[in-house]
């Protein structure tokens, strides 16, 4: 036992400074950042739109929910300078340039019930396994979600938040609804990853039943492919604490 403790102490503090400091370069590689449109947007967007494999780049801006961070648009004028921890209460709010930088992405507080702890249940409805692994990664010492009161639970009966990953396939719909019904109130649903939001690279797939909000009421959307652990942690933190304008970290 003592050897274990020595071993752990010798490695020093690994845990991120979140939520008291912005993410560093290690925590957020280039593809973790939302692509931004440098001005003039009217000239950049039409040039970059044809290379986007998901059609996320439109004449009015970038639909961040559909963006899979493939970086193809970066050689056509867009820049990887957007925030890492985007999140909004509707997919429509996740559009840049309008309304991304200026209005801080927020979530309506689903309930005043989550103040000090949050129990999270992960449900996979058709993911590639990357989102699952990033969400499970929150438990490792680098993120240590438990220090913030965020715990993963093995049963929906104990859960406050349903964390949905993957493109919702028709086969998983009954299980998704039953899992949501099994959760006690107050409860919230957080959808993470481009697949759960707008289908990502698999948009238009006939096996999928999008949008997710047709099946369960979604409180928060977190874009990314996959969103880095810090973005997921930040989303859960904000769901737990309510809107940042009312109460800071």
């Amino acid at each position: 036992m003592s050897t274990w403790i020595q071993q752990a102490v010798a490695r020093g503090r690994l845990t991120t400074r979140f939520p008291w400091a912005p993410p560093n370069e290690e925590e957020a590689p280039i593809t973790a950042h939302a692509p931004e449109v440098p001005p003039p947007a009217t000239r950049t967007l039409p040039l970059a739109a044809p290379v986007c494999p998901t059609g996320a780049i439109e004449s009015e801006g970038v639909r961040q929910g559909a963006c899979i961070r493939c970086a193809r648009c970066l050689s056509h004028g867009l820049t990887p300078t957007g925030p890492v921890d985007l999140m909004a209460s509707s997919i429509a709010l996740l559009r840049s340039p309008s309304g991304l930088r200026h209005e801080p992405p927020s979530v309506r507080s689903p309930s005043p019930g989550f103040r000090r702890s949050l129990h999270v249940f992960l449900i996979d409805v058709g993911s590639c396994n990357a989102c699952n692994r990033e969400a499970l990664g929150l438990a490792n010492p680098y993120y240590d979600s438990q220090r913030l009161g965020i715990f993963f639970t093995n049963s929906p009966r104990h859960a406050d938040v349903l964390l949905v990953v993957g493109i919702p396939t028709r086969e998983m719909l009954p299980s998704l609804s039953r899992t949501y019904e099994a959760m006690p109130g107050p409860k919230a649903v957080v959808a993470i990853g481009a697949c759960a939001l707008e289908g990502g690279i698999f948009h238009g797939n006939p096996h999928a039943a999008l949008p997710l909000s047709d099946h369960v009421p979604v409180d928060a959307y977190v874009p990314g492919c996959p969103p880095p652990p810090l973005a997921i942690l930040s989303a859960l933190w904000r769901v737990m604490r309510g809107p940042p304008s009312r109460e800071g970290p």
Partner: protein
Amino acid sequence: MTRSSWVETSLSEVPKTSHDLSLSYLSPDARLAILTDYTEHRTRVLRGEPLGLDPARFPNQPWLAPAARGLRRCPPDEDVRGYGIFTFPYGPVTGGVPEAVRFDVRTYGERILELTPVTGFKRRGVLAGIAGLPLPDAALRVERMVGNLSAAHVTAFLTAAESARGLPVPERELWTRALALELQRIYNHLHAVARVAESAAQSVGQAQVHALSEEVLRLAGWAFGHRWLFGALLPGGPDRRLEPSDRRTIGTRIARISADFQTLWDLLSHTRIFVDRIQGTSPIPRREAIRWGAVGPTLRASSVGWDDRVHAPIPPYTDLFVAVPQGIDGDALDRIAVRVGEIQSSTLAIEQILDRWPAASGEIPPEPCVEAHRGIARVEGPNGDLIYDVTMQGDRVAGASCRSASEANLPLLALGSRQSVFTDFSFAWESFGFVIAEVDR
């Protein structure tokens, strides 16, 4: 894209019966055919001919046909009817298994008498959907089909596609693929060890190993721009010119992570509770491993020393020394020990790759090709042998199919779990290293 192009068989069948359709296994006979092909493969590689296996030898795609139809579910070795015996469904939504899959467990309370994996819940029809797409767009979907094994799938897919078009590959691209593959192998193996330690209630051990896994992911993010290597290997992507200082950084960091892990493994393997839980759990005898067509660490744990990187190598593995660790008993401990050995062996491979990194990218202009051609490639992914069969029409993909390692190993889970108690199930599941996303693709 039309609706019908997304489904591999007929659209009406898929939602109802995909549970049965999604499983097709490599029969033992087909496996032997592929095993004997490697001498010829090596000769072709040495001659500098296009990579991949010779499609003429496999006109019927033996590994894709449900040749092992009767073998999908291991037959119970005792009468599983009787008083008090019932079947309960475990999944597709469980806390223990983070992916959508169901197990029908036949039991009378504690001991698993029969276990049937039921897949198809997250079937997305990815490979059927890529028909007609240009190669870079198709590869973009293939890498996002199985996130944690993206490098292995993209490498196998691209090697098969390049083989179909008869194109040689720029040398640096080959070395980049190998580097990505080995990084991916290390973080997946570390994750498997951490999950087993977690199931055995080794909280400190699992936290420390998970931290190392996160470090490799961060290193991958730093070197390739994406933690899960999405976009790193795509054709026409940015040229990843690793400068000598970058290569030194990668080498130093991987060597340190590997050394740290070895210290942790020494502690873990001397922890009685940890070893007791996994020793003798879900054993796969050598004979059964060969009979059911096991692949990867599962096969090697059962003392069969087959590794594609040694026995059917694609360049640059032809020039690298790759150690092939093996187990003896084929139990969960052996499967984990083989992974531990492979972390060391991959570290050594990365060292060699970085040492011999080619100076020039060696661009080769693509030649136009309009006829449909078929190519087959196999790559040793983190959880085993991966086979892709791709048909190209010009620069577009006409069709693609694959046999993944998880598919091949799934019957072994049924075999290994039989006789064990339900609390041992998580050890069996994690030690095999299944990824359901590559079964339900």
